[in-house]
């Protein structure tokens, strides 16, 4: 068995410490909100919100309160609104303790690739490069293989890089991997996952 998307989100939530300011990327990371009830966590939204809440109740939608995915949102007690320069000052200046981002590839060195799936048809990096460089700690959340079956945990990224040496922990459907410069450390394996793929096992050992 592997972890579902929601189980991965729950596992990522468990990496957070109360009191932290956290930015959640688009994709699986947005599911983490559902696992933060009663947690003393402030969510940062790159479009200018500290203290993002969940979706509004029907009828309470406000076009001026949206998250970075352009979805209607709410705010929690103690929230604030600010402009985009201030929002990225928080990110780039290291004031956001954790960013949890979706990923296409993560290398043993913590290189992150998540902004474009090939170099020829780019749509833009949005805030991904700022977040991965600026947050004090970056956690990547992704399935460990592509739909086509290729490993997304890699020795070196083949896709265009979002940031070098950015990711410290990768939460996947098969377990939790810590980035250790020249290898991954398997910190936790999802219950019932069979023996690791030999290619992945090799990445648990130092060197190339």
């Amino acid at each position, binding site marked *: 068995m592997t972890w579902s998307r929601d189980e991965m989100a729950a596992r990522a939530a468990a990496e957070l410490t109360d009191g932290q300011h956290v930015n959640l990327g688009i994709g699986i990371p947005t599911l983490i909100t559902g696992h933060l009830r009663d947690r003393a966590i402030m969510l940062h939204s790159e479009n200018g919100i500290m203290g993002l809440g969940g979706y509004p109740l029907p009828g309470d939608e406000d076009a001026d309160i949206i998250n970075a995915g*352009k979805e209607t949102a709410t705010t929690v007690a103690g929230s604030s609104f600010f402009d985009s*320069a201030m929002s990225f000052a928080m990110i780039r200046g290291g004031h956001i303790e954790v960013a949890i981002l979706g990923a296409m590839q993560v290398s043993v060195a913590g290189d992150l690739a998540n902004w474009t799936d090939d170099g020829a048809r780019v749509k833009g990096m949005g805030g991904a*490069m700022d977040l991965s460089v600026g947050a004090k700690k970056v956690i990547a959340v992704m399935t460990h293989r592509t739909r086509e079956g290729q490993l997304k945990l890699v020795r070196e990224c083949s896709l265009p890089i979002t940031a070098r040496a950015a990711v410290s922990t990768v939460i996947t459907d098969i377990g939790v991997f810590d980035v250790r410069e020249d290898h991954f450390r398997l910190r936790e394996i999802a219950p019932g996952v069979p023996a690791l793929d030999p290619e992945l096992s090799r990445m648990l050992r130092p060197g190339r």
Partner: protein
Amino acid sequence: MSKIAESAGAAVADITDGRTIAIGGFGLCGTPSALIEALLQSGATDLHIITNNCGPDSSDVTRLLRAGRVRRVSASYIGDNSEFLNSYLGGAITVDLIPQGTLAEKLRSGGAGIPAFYTPTGVGTAVAQGGIPVRYGSGSGFAAEYSAPRHVAEFDGREYLLERSLTADFALVRAETADTIGNLRFRGAARNFNPLCAMAARVAIVEVQEVVEAGGIPPDDVHLPGVFISRVVDLGGRMRKPIERLRTTDPVPAGGGSHGL
């Protein structure tokens, strides 16, 4: 010395062909629809638009594109928008893709008289190395022009790249409230790039939901001082605020709490 313009059309009348225009908003949120509509009506063409993202296909900025009035776009993201993506990939427009935080800082710096700054964002990536397609060959599917590499320098043992600031001839922005001399208040996340675009422009034009007298906004509560604003268009409560992605939640079950510090 009231800055209230007669109409949106009058406010944008001197935007001539070839100008660089910074447009506030994040997708549909905080985007100055009435001013963009007026710009569309004005006929100005060959425009260089600076805006964070172009919104969905239904966005006002997309209408400018569809009408063939956009030469170049500087943005952090042009996905979610098939028109922009196709115009870019088809070679019809030039696109500078800029990390969102760098774009915000370029505008703020441009407005603040800082011509260039170093940033860690993009080090070791195609932003620093150059090679992001800027323009595609017409119909070829191949890039005809790539972004230039950035100068990289080391400070205290860490690498940073040098980014030039952005200024604009005009800014089109949206706020909730203005006083007659252009002091502004924004609402919620509709603030986003609006103050920065206004700061970066030689002439900043704002559309607002309501106008109050000078002094009607307490001086501690002004989000953007009127010194940055040249013209105010009063929408008199008729501001259109579309929602890009409507999401709602079921009522919280009894005993359910919320997060927050």
